């Protein structure tokens, strides 16, 4: 079943995506396929199977509380679409 227009718009808003009417229609069908696929998975009988949060059997992988060198400021900002050499610049959030 295709997702409703409201559902698609809500998901887009959570990801801060602007989508057109046409895309809403397109995604409502595409997302429906994904949801259908999960429904197939959900149909598998899992009685007697413990839920798991993690599929790696390793436990307790730690680092000691030791400081390592950070990236130089210039390097950290290098790939940003916009910066002033000190801060990242992003489209204004409020104000």
């Amino acid at each position, binding site marked *: 079943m295709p997702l409703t227009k409201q559902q698609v718009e809500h998901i887009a808003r*959570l*990801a*801060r995506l602007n989508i057109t009417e046409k895309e809403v229609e397109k995604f409502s069908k595409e997302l429906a396929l994904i949801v259908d696929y999960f429904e197939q998975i959900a149909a598998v009988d899992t009685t007697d199977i413990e839920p798991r*949060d*993690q*599929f*790696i059997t*390793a*436990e*307790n*992988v*730690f*680092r*000691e*509380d*030791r*400081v*390592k*060198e*950070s*990236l*130089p*400021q210039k390097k*950290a*900002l290098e790939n940003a679409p*916009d910066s*002033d050499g*000190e*801060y*990242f*610049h*992003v*489209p*204004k*959030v*409020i*104000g």
Partner: protein
Amino acid sequence: MSEISGFEPVIGLEVHAQLLTNSKIFCGCKVSYGQQPNSLTCPVCLGLPGALPVLNKRAVEFAMRMILATGGTVKNRSVFARKNYFYPDLPKGYQISQYDKPIGQGGKIKFKLENGQEKSCGLTRIHLEEDAGKSLHPEHGEPYTRVDLNRCGTPLIEIVSEPDIRSAEEAYGYLSKLKQILQYLEVCSGDMEKGHLRCDANVSVRPVGQKKFGTRTELKNMNSFKGVEKAINYEIKRQTKLIKSGGTVTQSTLLWDEKKQVAEEMRSKEESKDYRYFPEPDLVNLIVNDAWKEDVSKNLPELPDEKSTRLISDYHIRQYDALVLTDSRALADYYEKVMVDFGDGQAAANWIQTEFLGLLKESKVEIQESKVTPEMISALLAKVKSGELSGKMAKEVFGEMFASGKQAEDIIKDKGLVQLSDESALGTIIDNIISVNPDNLAKYRDGKTNLLGFFVGQVMKETKGQANPQVVNKLLKEKLEG
């Protein structure tokens, strides 16, 4: 409080405490404040593709300390989860937190109100998570927001209380105690003004006697303990007024505006289900066995309440003094160091509270930074006790000691401050004074005994204030009465 009569507030607090680790929770970047923006980042805390988080063991131990110190349970297995939301100061697009399997569960905080009444507030959970970066919003009409990611990945514990708090004053008491415990455990600086401790409050009101909770709102953006108290009082009044006038409270998030002293609704806040929590696939399960718990538990320091009880029994001081002295661990330790070489607990407690704390406050010096060592205070107090110095002289010496860091002995020598207690020397001085004041002597003997003060004054003048007042009083009375 008549505006809220008939209604009872129900309050729960969520406190975020930055942990005093050297490095961040999932990478080796240094945790430090006031550095060049974006100079303490790496691929992990910048959220660059392919970078993997690895958990800082000390952050886990700090969380365990707080859980065990508040009587909670450290879970054998806990799981990290992704909390998804879109914000520029969160470069990964999710915050690594803990959701349905937090490391800590239960426990409680006992605290006292101003009037001495004891209260207790249950804890729902304590979990580990990472802090976000900092956004600097435009102030002069710039078309952009600036982002500093140095804080991104700083370890936090979130301490969630049960809705057990019933007034803004109780919230204040709870927070003060929480901060004190965090500081005693040395896991957080507790500085709310600097954002090292942050508090959100869930507030609702209900008619007195009603069991069911009212609809709650969440208050954010308070940056001091007083701010929390004020914001809660504001919100209690707002909700009560609204309900009394026939309205209903809608669930929302409000931002406290310290300048305007109002809480304003925050637009478009995600609902809990919008965070789309799921287990963090990049981190393995955290398992804490009994041996590890035992180890952390046995290394917990003495906590404020235990310390206060012990100081009362070890040094025979009043309860109020014990409370003041245990306010910080540094002050309590200082007091105990003074007591190593000094026997009078109450005298030392009085001196520290009135003289030492007074000067520290006046000069805005922290106890750790003071030039006066505990040994210097015990040496000074011993001189008062033995009668070598009067209380007044000791204050003078202490003022000098506080400013210069010199030993009492040296100051006394420099200033020629020696208390005269020698009865024969003082007796001669007193005899002289009496002999040149025959009129006053006669009046005294006629019953004007308050002239004793005059004679004491004369002796003090003659001895430049160095005469031992007890000895002077005793000798004067004997001689005046003949």
